[in-house]
């Protein structure tokens, strides 16, 4: 038995359709406009791939894109490695202060990036780390670490500690236990954590914005600067490419992990 009568089901589906339209319409329009030759977004659309060729000649945007990709990949590698190690320690050992260490993971997630970003700017400036790509990398890894630890720890909760004990009693060293027993089991969690880390870094705007210098920026910072200077349709083209890439990545992830499916 359902809470609402059957004829309302159709209304419910229509409603979800409207919400989806709200979510996708502006993105769809942006993709269309990236193929419109008119720089003032005039209709009807005059089909052209001109903004994409213009984009190919925009060395500043391309350099910023490479910075974004490099920083995101480096962040993913470092945050996944350090985060997985910390999760293993939090899972495997008991010691005083463990609860505190776990609680410390939430401020970086919960505090608005505006506050974290400006605080990093002040501190890095004061201690001489300064601004630039290295500072951005330092910040991104710190933002990604709590996500990796939370996701990997969640996966570890499903792990049976007896498996580690069994391997040990059969003579495996600590490293062998970790590599042959524990890591294969938590691999999906580690991959999910890595994807989180990549997304946090690649989409990061606020923290990168405060830590970048004119020559050393990432793509979102460059896009923000371009939007504030005035609408440039090349931004449509680069935004379309980003949207297609990140949505494809997410779809692949979802196929792999079946997010939102039954428990």
């Amino acid at each position, binding site marked *: 038995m359902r809470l609402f009568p059957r004829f309302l089901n159709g209304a419910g589906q229509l409603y979800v359709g409207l919400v989806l339209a709200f979510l996708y319409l502006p993105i769809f329009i942006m993709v269309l406009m990236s193929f419109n030759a008119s720089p003032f977004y005039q209709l009807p659309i005059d089909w052209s791939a001109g903004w994409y060729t213009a984009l190919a000649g925009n060395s500043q945007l391309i350099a910023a894109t490479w910075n974004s990709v490099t920083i995101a990949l480096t962040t993913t590698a470092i945050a996944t490695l350090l985060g997985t190690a910390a999760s293993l320690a939090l899972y495997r050992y008991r010691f005083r202060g463990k609860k505190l260490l776990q609680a410390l993971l939430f401020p970086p997630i919960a505090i608005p990036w505006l506050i974290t970003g400006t605080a990093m700017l002040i*501190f890095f400036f004061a201690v001489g780390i300064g601004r630039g790509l290295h500072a951005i990398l330092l910040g991104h890894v710190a933002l990604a670490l709590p996500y990796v630890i939370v996701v990997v720890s969640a996966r570890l909760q499903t792990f049976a500690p007896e498996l580690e004990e069994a391997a040990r009693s059969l003579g495996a060293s600590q490293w062998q236990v970790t590599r042959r027993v524990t890591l294969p089991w938590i691999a999906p969690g580690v991959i999910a954590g890595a994807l989180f880390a990549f997304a946090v870094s690649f989409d990061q705007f606020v923290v990168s914005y405060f830590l970048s210098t004119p020559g050393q920026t990432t793509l979102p910072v460059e896009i*923000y600067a371009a939007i504030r200077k005035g609408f440039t349709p090349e931004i449509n083209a680069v935004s379309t490419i980003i949207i297609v890439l990140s949505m494809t990545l997410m779809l692949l992830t979802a196929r792999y992990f079946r997010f939102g499916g039954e428990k």
Partner: protein
Amino acid sequence: MTAAPPPGAQHSQLRPALPLLLPAYLWLTLAIFLPLSAMVFFSFMTDLPLADRSWAMTLGNYAAFFETDLYGRLLLRSLRLGLEVTLYCVLIGFPCAYVLAKVLKGRSREAIFLLVILPFWSNGLVRIFSWAIFLRGGGVIDSALNAVLPFEVSVDLMYSYPAVIIGLVHSYLPYMVLTCYLTLQAIDDSLIEAARSLGASRLTVLRRLIVPLAMPGLIAGAVLIFVPVVGSFMEPRILGGRSGTFYGTVIEDQFVAVFNWPLGAALSFILLAVVLAVLALAAPVLRRQT
């Protein structure tokens, strides 16, 4: 090996844990905890402690917040923006999550759920920019309406308070759908059936059963939306234009335009205090129900 803990072991295993923990927590200390502490310290300074400048400790930056009512007014304006965006996300997102969790079934539910949270994984800046194209005068809405309607209309929502609201609701709606969906999905259908067969009206079931059980999801979604919206500055800048001055944009100005970092630090710290107060208010509700 002795690493496996015998039940009830009291001795600390900190030593083997340290090498695994230290790299991650040192990194967090260097890039998050020390900066936040430094921000508090700087907010009490007259100027940056650079080689060629003299500085002193002061309460002036906080006094500035209370003396001119500008900052207080903007903070209230940002809090109102946060409340409004959260409210719209609840009103739009909760029914949507309900249909997903309780009406749709199987593959179609999975596919539509994915479609709802998919935009959330694309760049936030890019999504705000797509609204800028959509809303500007002589833009898409305008042309579409004029093509259909017999009379001329001019819709120019760009650079207005509603534009900021629309952009932010679009950005944060998936959070609300996601958190509500997760709690609604966990409600057993037989509970609803039992209430109905005992004679409860549909409205009563919704009010006394479904909404209370979904409360942790609603609160979690509200916190996830309210906190970043109060500190937002990029969305108001792009969509709000001249009517887009909020508390977040004033903080941004102190750091990138006016270069009054100590004042910016004080304003950031006041925002942090407000955010922590909100989290503290929400925490008991979340803890009790999960």
